Every structure is written in structure tokens, then in C-alpha cells.
């Protein structure tokens, strides 16, 4: 899934202003624009398609209820992501994850695929294997590392958006990404070395 920037900041601001006046149709346009990204975010956190759908919807409901508190002029998605993250963490705390990496690595790999097959069967298989190893390695990362990798690569968020969503300085985003990637690289090397 690739996420195109859905609106110009001006357009988004107009829709948000209308939503703040109670216009559900305007809010619906925001939902349509961000639903895939929201779903990806929830899926990264919960690793369950049904939960991801329900929780991303519930987060939109909560976002609409709280929309009057939203500061116009700021981007919508990082603000929404905080609500979504909160819901997902609460859900995981109450119900526990439905799948665990130690259970079936193959199931985890189901979520991941390389975007464009090359047409070369052997190369495609190697890439699939590499994808599987990478996914497993990502699953083994500390939660905060896993989250920032997912935000950067699966949700395609910019540093600025990540910083706003997690309420951390941009320097911390860079530093956390570096440590996450370093840990990921070490896990991949361990795998290649057969350790």
C-alpha cells in the first residue's frame, strides 16, 4: 500500500474547519483519504486485520468527537495517530495480541510482500525470503523500535509527522530510527551467520 499525500494543507484545513462545525460529510472526506494509512498503522500495532479495521474506525469516531480540540493548521494524521495508538495499546493490554511471532513466523510473513515482482522466479523467491527474514527481524525489535520502523516504512510518515505523532523532538526521531535500524541490521546479520 502506498500513501499519496491526500490533500493540500489548505484543503485539509478547510475540511477540518467544516468538521469542527459538525459537518460529518467533510469528516467523511478525511476518513476516505486517510483510511488506508490508518488501517496500516493499526495493522502494524495489532497484527490482526479484523482488529485493525475495527480500531481504525473507532479511532475516527473518537477523532470526530474530539475534533473541536484539534488545532487548525496542524496536520491531521499525526493527531489522529495518537488516538489510534492509544486505542490499539489499550486493546492489546486488555485482550492481548491475537498472534505472536514465536507462534508462526509464516503467518507474520503473510502481511508482507515485495512490491514489484521482477519476473525472475529465482530472484523473486530470494526476495520473498529476504522479506520474510526482514519481517521476522522487525518483529524481534523492541516495541518502540518496531513502531518507528513501521511508521517510517509502512505508514510512510515523515520525520515531522512521526515527531508530532509521538510527541518527541525530531532529533529523537532520528536517533531512535538509527538505533532501530542498527538493531535490525544486527538481527539480519545474526540470521545470515546462522546464529
Amino acid at each position, binding site marked *: *500500500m*502506498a500513501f499519496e499525500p491526500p490533500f493540500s494543507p489548505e484543503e485539509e484545513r478547510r475540511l477540518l474547519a467544516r468538521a469542527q462545525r459538525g459537518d*460529518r460529510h467533510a469528516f*467523511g472526506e478525511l*476518513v*476516505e483519504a486517510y*483510511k488506508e494509512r490508518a*488501517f*496500516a498503522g493499526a*495493522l*502494524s500495532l495489532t497484527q490482526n*486485520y479484523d482488529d*485493525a*479495521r475495527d480500531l481504525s*474506525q*473507532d479511532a*475516527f*469516531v*473518537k477523532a*470526530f*468527537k*474530539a475534533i473541536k*480540540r484539534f488545532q487548525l493548521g496542524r496536520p491531521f494524521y499525526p493527531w489522529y495517530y*495518537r*488516538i489510534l*495508538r*492509544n486505542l490499539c*495499546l*489499550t486493546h492489546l493490554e486488555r485482550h492481548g495480541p491475537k498472534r505472536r511471532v514465536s507462534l508462526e513466523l509464516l503467518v507474520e510473513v*503473510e*502481511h*508482507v*510482500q*515485495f*512490491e514489484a515482482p521482477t519476473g525472475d522466479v529465482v530472484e523473486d523467491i530470494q*526476495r520473498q525470503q*529476504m*522479506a520474510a527474514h*526482514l*519481517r521476522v527481524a*522487525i518483529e524481534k525489535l523492541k516495541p518502540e523500535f518496531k513502531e518507528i*520502523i513501521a511508521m*517510517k*516504512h*509502512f505508514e510512510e510518515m*515523515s*520525520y515531522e509527522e512521526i515527531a508530532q505523532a509521538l*510527541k518527541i523532538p525530531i*532529533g529523537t526521531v*532520528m*536517533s531512535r*530510527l*538509527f538505533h532501530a*535500524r542498527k538493531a*535490525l*541490521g544486527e538481527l*539480519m546479520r545474526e540470521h545470515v551467520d546462522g546464529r
Partner: protein
Amino acid sequence: MDRTERGANQPESAGGLGRLPDQRVMKVKHVEPPHEKMMAYLDGELPEKARLQFERLLEKHPEWRVEMADMAALIGATKQLKLKPPAAKVWDRYWEEIDNKLGRRMGLALALAGALILIGFGFYKVIMYADNDFVKLGIGLLGTGMLMLFTVILRARLLELRRDRYRRIRK
């Protein structure tokens, strides 16, 4: 005083016996690359000016290239990973369901407010016009009990919210 001068002026005992001053000069301290900037550079998040500055710095430190190349390869591989799109049915009625939930909540809130007003008014009327003291007492106790129950539930809910460690995120 630069590193060369410092090396040459150090007493021989500091460098160890038999070590020539030149050898001490050759031992250049390894400078760690600015990892944060490296991330921003590889992710294309550095503004033009900062990017050029970083590239100039890279030219001065060729020893960083191996780490850069490793990191770039990892980022390249990770970038190719995509979440598999869900089945199209995931999006069926996605917004409609949200819209329904929003409508339902609003309807419920309005209905609840209306019911509370009616119940309050009903209790008031019954107490005012009932000609039997027992009926008045019963209605009064029922009303008070319901009010107490409502307060207890509300207080429990507020406490639960206060204990919610993610509540700041919600705001």
C-alpha cells in the same frame, strides 16, 4: 595546538618504550559519524543546505562509507517491504459504519438527556401531586437511589479514565 604538535611534544614515556613519535601521530582517533544526520540524509529528510554540508563532511571521512553503505542497503530493503493490501471488502461500508456509529452516539446522547429530563420531571410531578405519603416516600427513595447509582457509575468511570496511562496520548 593540533594533534600532530601534541603528539610530537608528548614525553616519550607517555607513548610507551620504543614507540616512535611518528607512530603516535599516525594513530588517528576514530570519529563517529553523526548518526542522526546520516539517517536524515539517507531518508532524504535533510534540507538542501544541510545535505551539501553533510556531503562535504562525508568527503573528509571516507571511513564512514562502509557504515553508510550498510545502512543504505538496509533502508533500501526495508523500503521495499509493503503491507499487503487488505481484501477489498475491508473498505466496504467503512465510512458508513463510522457514520452510523457517530449518528448512534449522538442519538443516544440526545435520548439519554431527554430521558433524564422526563424522569426528573416525572418524579417531581408524582411527589407533588401524590395524595399518599407512602407513594411519595417510595418515589423519593427510588429517585434518590437512581441518582446515587448514577453518581457511583460516573465516579468509577472518571477514576478509570484518570488511571488510564495513555490518556495523555488521547489528548
